[in-house]
């Protein structure tokens, strides 16, 4: 699975452990760990101190929900899209695939941020100066601009820069 991901896997967290045996390193880690745990504990205390128990449960439920939505839905969808795109586009050059993927990711990130805004606007904002724009239309325009930019970039790659790009890539690999 790791081989399939554009990113690959980070080395096991103990890969550098040999380098971390010096006393200074150990001291730094202990200090950081203590500071981190105390800061975290303070946050937990503030949470318990300022909210009712049912609200604290609400926070925990939303934290778990955030993890589930990201790790269980969002990331697998991105992985699936990436695999499908790469399989169906095996004849396409890597650069073209990268441009396509990039455009989709930019569009999806904007959509994630803007859709709650569109929905909140349908609920009726607190006053007319909150959310004054037509965000759905603007999001549509953004996708359109993205599509045009993508076509332009890919066209540019095929028409003009293919050779020079390939050269630059192989030059970059020799660096």
């Amino acid at each position, binding site marked *: 699975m790791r081989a399939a991901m554009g*990113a690959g896997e980070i080395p096991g*967290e103990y890969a550098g452990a040999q380098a971390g045996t010096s006393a200074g390193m150990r001291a730094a880690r202990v200090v950081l760990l203590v500071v981190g745990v105390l800061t975290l504990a303070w946050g937990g205390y503030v949470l318990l101190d300022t909210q009712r128990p049912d609200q604290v449960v609400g926070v925990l439920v*939303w*934290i778990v929900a955030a993890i589930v939505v990201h790790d269980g839905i969002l*990331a697998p969808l991105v992985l699936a899209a990436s695999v499908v795109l790469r399989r169906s586009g095996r004849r396409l050059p890597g650069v073209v695939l990268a441009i396509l993927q990039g455009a989709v990711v930019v569009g999806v990130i904007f959509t994630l941020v803007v859709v709650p805004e569109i929905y909140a606007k349908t609920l009726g904002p607190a*006053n007319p100066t*909150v959310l004054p724009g037509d965000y759905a239309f603007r999001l549509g325009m953004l996708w359109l601009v993205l599509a045009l930019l993508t076509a332009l970039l890919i066209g540019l790659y095929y028409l003009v820069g293919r050779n020079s790009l390939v050269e630059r890539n192989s030059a*970059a690999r020799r660096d």
Partner: protein
Amino acid sequence: MATVLGRLLGLAFVVCFLTGLFSHFLQQPESWMRFPTSPAGLYAVTQGIHITAGIACFPLLLGKLWTVFPNLFQTPPVRSFLHLLERASIALFVGASLLEITIGLLNTYQWVPFPFFFKQTHFALAFVVIGSLVIHIAVQLPVIAEHWRKRGPDGKPLYGELEAYRATDGKDGDAVDTDVLPGGVTGRLMAYIDSAPRPEPSVSRRGFLATIAASTVALVVLTAGQSFALLDPFNLFGPRKRGVGPQGLPVNRTAEDAGVLSSAVAEDWVLTVRNGDTVREFSRADLAALPQVDVELPIACVEGWSQLARWRGVRMRDLADAVNAPAGSAFLLRSLEERGSFRINRMGPEYVRDERTVVALELNGETLHLEHGYPARMIAPARPGVTQTKWLSSLEVTV
């Protein structure tokens, strides 16, 4: 790659944390605290940065999580009790970070669909996130140190951690390690995923970073106009727009919400200024008869939007002098509002004595609009919007 994003994200988190703390203490100061009143746009800038950096965290955090997503499926899932603790802290780090930036974003347009208080939770989770970040750095310190150490003669890193990993273990990306894959449906799924062709690592790495960079820059450019005048023409997705609102200024709390529709326009309205037994009452006509000053000060809201405006009214320190308030006194500002946590707000002496702090009667050349605090409102330099008390009812010397 995870390191580049990690550094940027860590920086964004720290910036959000510090600007957030500044904003917190401006709104809920300890009585001994004093704050700078110059430059007058200080809070507009720090809170603009807070909100903008928070928005930039969306692509940065999603990108960072994508680079470490495979770690979720590491085998065996748990190696030891310590490893379990580490994974649990990562889960908390990820969940709290996602929740923190999400509720922050929703709050910028005053949408609170969650079953807990925004302000208190956002404040508490900030410590959870920063604490988890520090723990994460402690755990990863050897890897981070190793990464910094691997530098060429020109000072540039020789390897990113991924490249270092690929050089030793990644081998040919297109090869499928069938011997380590489980069988059955999972195995076939893994094989299917792994057999998908991979673009060259250099293309895929640069493409990925370019994508995250483009998303971050585009999001910032298309939203930050609500906080920074320079980007106003590109403000397509910010929840506030400069110039939109009565007298060309956005509104946070309306007169109707505040319950002041009748009290604010009452004929017998007076502003009471009190220092112990010394009490003066000023009608709006009385205030207008006092020496007037013009100031140009921003309204800068905790939700990140800000806008410069021209205000005209009576200097706060003239009113303080009218009741012989000592030079170091703080004031309680009271609003006509019937409810709300900022109905009564304490103004420290540094603002009381600043010559730009004004009880405003006019805004942008017109009589102050009811939505902006008619009959009179406070406007002080470098203070959060929520403390710029609208619909003033009294000013009282306090300790």
